[in-house]
Structure formats: structure tokens, C-alpha cells
């Protein structure tokens, strides 16, 4: 088993946290895992992304050039990573901030209005957790509980609740709306 994920969005969308949380969950599940941020000056005002590699074997390179899964939280990220996503890969799009027509034939495209859903939960900042939930439901490599457990270790109880709700909302959205996944053309 080997999964290569890129999470991308604006700075401030909790992109780094999302990637690290995924990595933690995988670590707890006994996988080999690496997490790698895009770092540095390009972050200023631009988009940021982080790369997660999860595997049953030692991870060779933490650098993901063509991800099996791309989680894109805004338009520039979608534009950047859509063409890089592996054939037959998965792309999760935050439709609140990014739009595409379903024109990529060889991809699983999962569209979710994460920012809007987060806003409904009370804070746009948990949009990252919404997409995490959707990812877990879609990929089924880790149980939902693993993620919730990992969440609990990293934040105060106050924040936990909101974040958990967001994960669950994303998970449910996926479960209840499988039809939303489309197979698009490039």
C-alpha cells in the first residue's frame, strides 16, 4: 500500500495542519509516513501545500510530484495540481473557493463546498477538517476514529469539538452523497 497526497490552499486555510494530521493518523496505524511542507518565500501571499506519503515500506522520497490524491482548497491550487494528479487519482475540491468542469476523464473528482459547510458550523477555518472527513470516507484506509483520536491530542477541548464536528460533517457528506463523486475528463 502506498498513498501520496498533496494538500494545497491559501496560507491560513490550515493546509499544513491537515497534512500533519493525516501523517499522524498513519503513524499511529503503524505505517511508514513522511510529511513535507512547501516552505519559504513563496508562502508569502501565495498558496502553500504539503505532501504526505503513507506506505507499508520505508518511504523513499517525501517529495510528491504527481499525487495519487490532491486536496485543493482554492482555485490557484486546483489550477496547479489538477494537471499533476496521477491518472486514476482522486482530487478533492473545495467548491466554495474553486471551480472546475468535470473534464478530466481519468480522475475521481470529489467536490465539496467545504468553506461554506465550515461557515455553517461556525468557523470557516475548519474547512480543512471537512475535507479530511470526506477523504477518510472516500478512501477508507483509516477509520474515522483514528483521526478523531489524533485531533484530540493536538488541541484544547474547546477547539476539539468544533473540529470533530467538521470532520464528521465531511465524512457524512461523502457517505450520503456518493453520487457527488464524478469521473471527469481532463
Amino acid at each position: 500500500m502506498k498513498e501520496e497526497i498533496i494538500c494545497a490552499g491559501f496560507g491560513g486555510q490550515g493546509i499544513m495542519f491537515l497534512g500533519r494530521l493525516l501523517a499522524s493518523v498513519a503513524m499511529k496505524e503503524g505505517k511508514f509516513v513522511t510529511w513535507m511542507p512547501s516552505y519559504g518565500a513563496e508562502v508569502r501571499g501565495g498558496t502553500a501545500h504539503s505532501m504526505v506519503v503513507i506506505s507499508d515500506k520505508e518511504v523513499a522520497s517525501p517529495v510528491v510530484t504527481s499525487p495519487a490524491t490532491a486536496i485543493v482548497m482554492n482555485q490557484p491550487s486546483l489550477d496547479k495540481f489538477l494537471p499533476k494528479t496521477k491518472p486514476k487519482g482522486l482530487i478533492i475540491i473545495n467548491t466554495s473557493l474553486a471551480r472546475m468542469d468535470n473534464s478530466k476523464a481519468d480522475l475521481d473528482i470529489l467536490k465539496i463546498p467545504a468553506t461554506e459547510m465550515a461557515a455553517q458550523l461556525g468557523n470557516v477555518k475548519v474547512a480543512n477538517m471537512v475535507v479530511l472527513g470526506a477523504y477518510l470516507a472516500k478512501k477508507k484506509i483509516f477509520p474515522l476514529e483514528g483521526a478523531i483520536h489524533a485531533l484530540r491530542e493536538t488541541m484544547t477541548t474547546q477547539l476539539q469539538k468544533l473540529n470533530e464536528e467538521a470532520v464528521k460533517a465531511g465524512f457524512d457528506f461523502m457517505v450520503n452523497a456518493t453520487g457527488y463523486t464524478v469521473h471527469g475528463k481532463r
Partner: protein
Amino acid sequence: MPSIKINKNRCKGCLLCLVNCPKGLLVKDKDINVRGVEAVVFKDSGECSGCAFCALVCPEVCIEVYK
């Protein structure tokens, strides 16, 4: 009558113009711009004095003032 023009797609939504306009003529946009930012828009109520405070404080050179 003075007025201003905002280059919305350059705007980074810092809101410095908004807090500095003595007449409160700048408001947050509901939409996001190409940068994914809630930009500001000019609410032209005819009160604009052309004081150019908004342009002076804008770090992104988004605002032009017409007198």
C-alpha cells in the same frame, strides 16, 4: 465630485483603507476575488472628499482617487 477606483483583483483585503476612510465609504465585498480574498468595494454615497487617505494607506496600490 471626487470618487475613487479600486483595482479589486489586486486587493488583499487588509482593510486598511476601510478603517482609514473618514467617511466610511469602503466596505467588504461579499464575493472573493481571483486571489481568494474578500476585497473591498467603494460605496459611492457622494460623500467622498477626495482626501486620498484610502490610497495613501493601501499597501497594494489598488486605489486611484479622482477629484
